């Protein structure tokens, strides 16, 4: 609860400071941060990437937008999956993505392909919000339906990347 209140306060403060220039509103961003965290609860990374007993941080890489990255970093600060602290970093398509465990491509990334390309040879859970992303081999596609955020999972892509998705998560995925 406290975290939630803190989050709410942070979002309010950000909105006041940044004003209208932002591509995504704060509310939506908060939900996206919660979804990213929840999804990572049901994913198993290969030990080479994330030792289940170790305490190396889990790196959430955010494509493109510094503002979004900073907002997310604030929203996810202090959260951990097991002993792995969540770190948020902004990446570009030319960056080495090998250190990333999750790659989030917000809606405003119109060409997901470079990012997908860069992440392809690494066990990185890719989460995107566009249909293009899903079609070009993105693993989890977040979309709005009936005013609720839903997700669809490309189980094949995850498997190819060496990630294991929990059955319960698979059970909740709905194709758009």
């Amino acid at each position, binding site marked *: *609860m406290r975290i*939630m209140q803190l989050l709410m306060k942070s979002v309010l403060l950000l909105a006041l400071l940044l004003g209208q220039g932002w591509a995504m509103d704060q509310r939506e961003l908060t939900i996206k941060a919660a979804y990213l965290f*929840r999804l990572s*609860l*049901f994913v198993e990374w290969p030990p080479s990437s994330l030792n289940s007993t170790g305490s190396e941080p889990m790196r959430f890489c955010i494509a493109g937008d510094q503002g979004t990255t900073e907002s997310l970093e604030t929203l996810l600060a202090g959260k*951990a*999956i*097991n*002993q792995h602290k969540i770190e948020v970093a902004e990446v570009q398509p030319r960056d080495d993505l090998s250190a990333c465990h999750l790659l989030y491509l917000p809606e405003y990334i119109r060409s997901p392909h470079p990012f997908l390309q860069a992440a392809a040879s690494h066990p990185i859970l890719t989460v995107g919000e566009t249909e293009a992303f899903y079609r070009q081999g993105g693993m989890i596609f977040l979309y709005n339906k009936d005013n609720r955020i839903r997700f669809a999972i490309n189980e094949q892509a995850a498997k190819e990347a060496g990630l294991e998705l*929990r059955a*319960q*998560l698979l*059970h*909740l995925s709905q194709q758009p």
Partner: protein
Amino acid sequence: MIHTQRSIKNRLFFIIVLTSTIVLLIAGLLFITFRMMQLKQDMTNSLTIQAGVIADNAKASIVFKDKDEASNSLASLQYDPQVIYAVLLNDENQVLARYQRPDSDLSKAPRIVDAFLTDSPIFSETERYLVHARPIYSQANKIGHVILYADFSRYRHLLAHTALVVGIVIILALIVALCLSYLLQKLISKPIESLADFVWTVIEGQNYELRVENKSYAEIERLSDAFNKLLEQIHYAISARDQAQMQLKKYSEQLQELVYDRTRQLENAKEAAEASSRAKSAFLANMSHEIRTPMNAIVVFTRLALNASESPHQQQQLKRALESVDLLLSLIDDLLDFSRIDANKMELDYQDCDLFEILTSINQMLTAKFVEKELEFIIDVSETVPRHIWTDSLRLKQVLINLLTNALKFTERGQVRLSISPDKNGPSPQINFSISDTGIGMDRKTLDRIFEVFSQGDVSTTRKYGGTGLGLSISKKLVTLMGGNLNAESRPGQGSRFSFSLPLKPVLAEAETDNAIAIDRSVPMPDVMVVEPRQQSRTHLVGLLQSLGCKADSAETGNGALNQLTRHHYRHLLISRNLPDIDALKLVRLIRAEPRLSGLSISLMDNLLGEQAIKQFSETDTPVGYLKTPVFDRVLLYRHLVSGQQENAPRILPQAEPPVQLLKLSCVLIVDDYHINRLLVMDILQDQAERFLEAVNGREAIEILQKEKVDLVLMDIQMPEMDGYEATRRIRQQLQLTSLPIIGMTAFAGESDRRQCYQAGMNDVMTKPIDIEQLRKIFHQLSKGQARFSAVNSAAGADPALTNYRLPGIDVESGLSRLHNDEKKYKKLLELFYNSYQGKENLLEDYLAQKNWAGAEAWLHALKGICANLSISSVNDSCVKLHQQLQNRSVEPKDLQQFKHRFTEVISGLRQVAESEP
């Protein structure tokens, strides 16, 4: 037999049942507890598992808030009936899903408490539910809670079910235990009971040879063994005891037999001894009888010869013969007495006796001997000695004569003194007799043996003094029989003293009474002088006179007397016949010659032998009185002195009878088995009878009496075939010869013999040896027609018998027997009584009215004595009663009336007697 509540059987049963009950209950409780815990554990386990499964399955639906999926994850709870309610909460504590068991009656959802929302799973119990809350984690992040509510009802239901099962199991187990214990207790109690039964068999059958065969248990076996041992011991003991008893019984039987044998032997011996003793006694009695009969003949014929003899020399010889016979007779008597006493056959014949009569008789018998040895004989009777005593006169006389003869025998000079005095030392009144002499005496050794049989001082004594040596021994035994003890004291040269005391039983009349009748104290007594040379006699006589109230002086010699007569005036002079200086007769003449002494009455004193001479002197020369020595009877002395002054006759004492003309009898029957006795009687009576008839026994006598008319029967007592008693009885009863005079003749003239004769119907009894004088006297009485029996039946008798009168209150029979059936005497005495007391019936009343107690008492006392003597029993009884009451100075009027009535009755009865006298 066995108290059921305490029997081992019941105890065992009880113990088993109790033990199994307790064990079963404990086990049941433990089981239920365990089951409870187990059930609870099951519940928690089941909840934990289900909560875990739900938490795992619902993770994604919680994370992504998928309510449908969440509800689905709770749906599996329907398979667990105990969970009635469940909730799923997300991390914001929002309820994502809820489950309620369709059939549960949960009215409202249980509250979710904050306490449930912890970081670790917890269990919490309320009254109805067991709550399990579990937090749900995903990758170390708490994402929500699952809370399950389990209902206890099922748990309780299961528990109740378990309890029921346990209860049933317990009950079943108890039933089994009961059955088993019933079966098993028999194992224990059976052997014990059988042992007990066995013991009872042994006890009831008394069979100690039985043995127990009980091997069921080690303990019982031990008990049985011990019991067998015990039985063995008992058997042994009992058989030993039985044996001992048998032996004892055998011994006792043997002993009984022995005792029986011995007893029979003893009985035989006793019978033999008794028979021999009887034979001895009979022999002695017969012998004495046999000896007496010829002796009697000797005596009587000798006396007849003596009477007929003219020659003095022959007379002398005959007298000697008589003396010898007397001695022989006394010897026989002694022997007979001794044998009687020795055989305990001596029977005393107690009678009312006149002591003075006894003494007179003794004096008569011994006078000659005293005169012969020139010894003084003093009889000293104390004034308080009663005249009449209750004793066996014959035996008392015998003892006294024995002792006096003994004293005479051993005394050469001096005197023999017989003292009689009441002995007041003992607890009961006694009368003491003491005979002392001045003879040779005895030393102690002799004194010790003196009462032994056939013992005398020593052999020389026997030679010198003669005697059987039985006398003292017999005396001692007789005194013992009479209740006294004969003692002797003596020292050589100083004489001997024999004394004994007898219980004094005075007869109704006492000494005072006699004196009251005979001695009138109111008469002034004369002054008396005694002239007596012998000192002892003089002192005694003076003492007697003084006791009568006389003033008495004494002189030793005739001259001394003459001297004193000049100095003092005496009324009466008593002179001994034997004076040393002057002949007593001469002295009398001298005194009579003196005119100054004309008023003096003189009595000469001498023993019986001198009586005749003095009487002759009195008739021919000058009148003098005769006083028989020794003087001992106060009454006689008084009368002697008083008759000198007054002419009135002594009261109530019979006067001598005038001689009567003899009648001749026509026929006399003499019954005796001894011819010589019959001859003797015929000889004596030849002048008095015309004809004699003889019979040898009672039967012959009866036969004769049936044919002949007889005037008199003289009947011997001891005869063969039929004795005198029986014969007399038959004569009186069968022949109805009630008026025929029958006179018995017996050798044993005891009072009892006499009474027996009277009872048989005899008129009188004579003792053998037949005294000629006695026979003649009886004959005279008979011929006068005054013998009791003939008098009774003679219708034409001049003097009617007393029995013809109606004399109420007078026991004529007893009165007559007291006077030896001397009816005439009795009649005279009764007449005297009548004359003295006629018209005096009110005298006593007068005395009492004047309160003259002493007078009344004296009068009654005198009357009582007289009535007792005359057998006027009714008045006597009243007198005794009134006399007793007078001691308390009050008389009951009832008794006084009775006395008066009886007195008048007696007097009026006697009036006929008195008036019938011509």
